[in-house]
């Protein structure tokens, strides 16, 4: 990498950070409990809009994993998400009604909160429908992972999105509040992911899964990116680029081995495809606040009328992380 392009990336990073600082004015505090944060805490950052029904299980799941403080940005929810979160003892909540899209799909807000509260902590940035799975997560808390990463001088941890879906119609089984969404969306594609290296940022660009298979069989290049780096030992100089797909400085994107070995990695089980999905897609289409002119949602909307089934004969049913490891979707690396 030449000095010029490395300098360009530096400027780019600075620009994002300045943006994040400026966009802080869009956030107004609803409940600020960040003084409770202790030095060794693992923090969770999340932007959401109208996800009330998912929240109880989401919070439970991550509390059990060992997350000790949650920082939410509520983007103008109307279903009581904000009040619910504000009532939780371990949550800090900010509110904004400004454009999600113009905040670079929420990343400016996230970058600001990370900058302000994340420095020196292991920070997990996820969506309310994403559930983080890492090696040994059934027997070890997330601090075991972060301690090990610290000891190994690793600063970022990758977790690809794994789209989960139910068998049969997406809306056949209604989701109840507090329920584990994986009881309904229990299936996934195990081996149809394709990878390309992004030479500019050094990260991998991964596509595939049921969304490419069902929604984009003729235009696979439009399928959404699945690579994510949600767990980072945050420093003030860091900035997420687009969603949590990649960040700067680019060294943090090198979460893969290029000489045949496997680094440790996890997965984000993505439980978007529940009965709540159709409404959400409809709403997002009219708002037009999503990536690439909401091309994803358009493709869904075109198909959703035909009642598409994501499930196929070769779908795998989720059991545990060991299964995902054996299938080659994630890896223990040298953590044993």
């Amino acid at each position: 990498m030449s000095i010029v392009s490395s300098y360009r990336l530096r400027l780019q990073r600075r620009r994002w950070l300045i943006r994040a600082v400026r966009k802080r004015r869009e956030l107004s505090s609803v409940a600020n409990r960040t003084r409770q944060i202790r030095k060794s805490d693992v923090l969770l950052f999340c932007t959401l809009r109208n996800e009330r029904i998912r929240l109880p299980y989401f919070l439970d799941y991550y509390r059990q994993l060992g997350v000790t403080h949650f920082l939410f940005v509520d983007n103008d929810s109307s279903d009581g998400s904000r009040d619910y979160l504000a009532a939780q003892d371990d949550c800090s909540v900010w509110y904004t009604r400004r454009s999600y899209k113009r905040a670079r799909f929420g990343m400016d807000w996230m970058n600001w909160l990370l900058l302000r509260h994340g420095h020196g902590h292991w920070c997990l940035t996820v969506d309310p429908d994403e559930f983080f799975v890492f090696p040994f997560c059934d027997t070890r808390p997330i601090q075991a992972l972060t301690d090990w990463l610290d000891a190994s001088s690793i600063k970022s941890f990758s977790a690809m999105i794994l789209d989960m879906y139910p068998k049969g119609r997406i809306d056949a089984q209604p989701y109840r509040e507090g329920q584990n969404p994986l009881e309904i969306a229990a299936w996934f594609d195990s081996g149809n992911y394709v990878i390309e290296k992004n030479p500019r940022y050094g990260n991998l660009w991964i596509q595939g899964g049921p969304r490419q298979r069902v929604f984009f069989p003729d235009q696979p290049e439009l399928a959404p990116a699945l690579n994510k780096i949600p767990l980072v030992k945050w420093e003030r100089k860091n900035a997420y680029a687009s969603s949590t797909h990649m960040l700067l400085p680019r060294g943090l994107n090198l979460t893969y081995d290029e000489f045949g070995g496997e680094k440790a990695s996890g997965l984000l089980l993505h439980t978007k495809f529940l009965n709540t999905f159709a409404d959400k897609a409809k709403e997002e289409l009219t708002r037009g606040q999503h990536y690439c002119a909401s091309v994803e949602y358009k493709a869904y909307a075109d198909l959703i009328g035909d009642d598409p089934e994501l499930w196929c004969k070769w779908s795998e049913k989720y059991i545990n992380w060991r299964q995902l490891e054996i299938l080659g979707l994630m890896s223990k690396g040298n953590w044993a």
Partner: protein
Amino acid sequence: MSVGIVMLVHADLDRAEQVARHWSAAGCPVVIHADANVPARTFRKFVKALSDIDTIQFSPRHRCEWGTWGIVAATQSASEQMLRSFPDVRHVYLASGSCLPLRPVQELIDYLAARPRTDFIESATTSDVPWTVGGLDSERFTLRFPFSWKKHRRLFDGYVRLQRRIGLKRKMPNGIVPHLGSQWWCLTRQTLSAILQDPERDTYDRFFKRVWIPDESYFQTLARLYSGHIESRSLTLSKFDFQGKPHIFYDDHLQLLRRSDCFVARKIWPRADRLYEAFLTDEAHAMKRTEPNPGKIDRIFSKAVERRTRGRPGLYMQSRFPRKNWENGMTGAKYSVFQGFTELFSDFEPWLARATGCKVHGHLFAPDRAQFSSDQKVINGALSNSAAIRDYRPQAFLTNLIWNTRGERQCFQHGPVDRQGAAMAMARDPNAQISVISGAWAVPLFTSNRDFADLRTEAARLQKIESEFLDKLRSPLAKARIRIWTMAEFVENPMEPLQLIIDELGAKNARRLTEAPKMVNLQGFGQFLQNLKNQGMHPYLMGDFPTDPATHRPGRTNQRKPYLVKK
């Protein structure tokens, strides 16, 4: 009071306190060295917490940075204090704050009492073991290391390079032979005091102060001078990863640790409550002993290192994306590619499936869709048959298919009518067995009912594509198992090559082939080729086919009949 514990502590003092209490409860005096980096307040609290036990002492504090002399200095002063304060101690056991005794302490005491003159210290000459990570082994002793590796990596590396370039070297004092080994040892009073009271100690200390990671070599080297009986192994179980950092033990290792034959394990995750609970009990509450099986621990950790360094061949994923030629196996399993066989034999695919029991696909790279076996829309791993998805990343399509079907050999057809996106990948892949009947693409043209002008253009196009493919197969980069026959050659005697291919596939029934696939009727094919030639398009890939049926045909048909024409 025959075993004294020297404990080096730098963090998680509450765990260290727990372990120190455990040692002293079993009658072992403990001397604790706390890193000078531990804040004064924390340290005072720690000392106070342990003040109720008078066989626990604290030694003068040194600053211990990894890889530097501080750790040795700390060990020295703590050991001196141990020998001075507890004259009954016969063995001194060096442990850390994150060590955990795996077996009742009394067992260790008995074990050492039965071996009063044995020093347990791993100690091997640098030239004989390739343990060290990062290329510094004998240079640990011959170069100087004044800079911190952790804080000033550039200076450290730069100074190493500089010394190498100008050939700076140090001599071992008094001609001692450098030895390396685990930092955690158990020495007898005799040996340890001989080291600490050596009149030459200043010389050695001065030398080792500039050695890289002296805690792995100081005692290991000097013990060789004085010990009457060295057993070169550590009583402490510690496993190292590929970067030389110790593996950490967690709650879920409980059953594994119970099967260790070592007395002490390191290092334990400070929050592994179950481990501390299970092992820090008195004998009455100790768990039932299980048969030691140290091999299992070994396997698990060496597998982890292997996974990190070599990975799973044929896997491409978010944390394993090898560069070209670093794949350590481009694909996960062997597979076979057939070019020209379905064109020449009308029932080749079912015949191959019968003869070998493999999974036989059609043309996976056909322009309209991937022709999976039984024309499935989706196959193992939810791999789609969409041509667009396949052509988007053809090589990933191939590697995914082979990865998803590990354990079942895959065969598929290929040809110049197909997309060529994965052609080079297949040619480079040692797992591929590629069999080509060159020129067989002309047969479907010959049997089709199309205008001759069309046929001619199509033939020219296909011949060009196939010849490019053959160039790839013949390139020096090709690593696949490749066989190429011209069609004329193959038709002459088809059974022999077929047998060859089937044998190589490792078919279940290793018998000779009894049944041949049905060859299409080639009567007039020679004339067809001649017609192409007459139009100025010279088909050459199929070899020489005689044009004149009158002179050659009868003889050849007779020859072929017993093998090929099945009624």
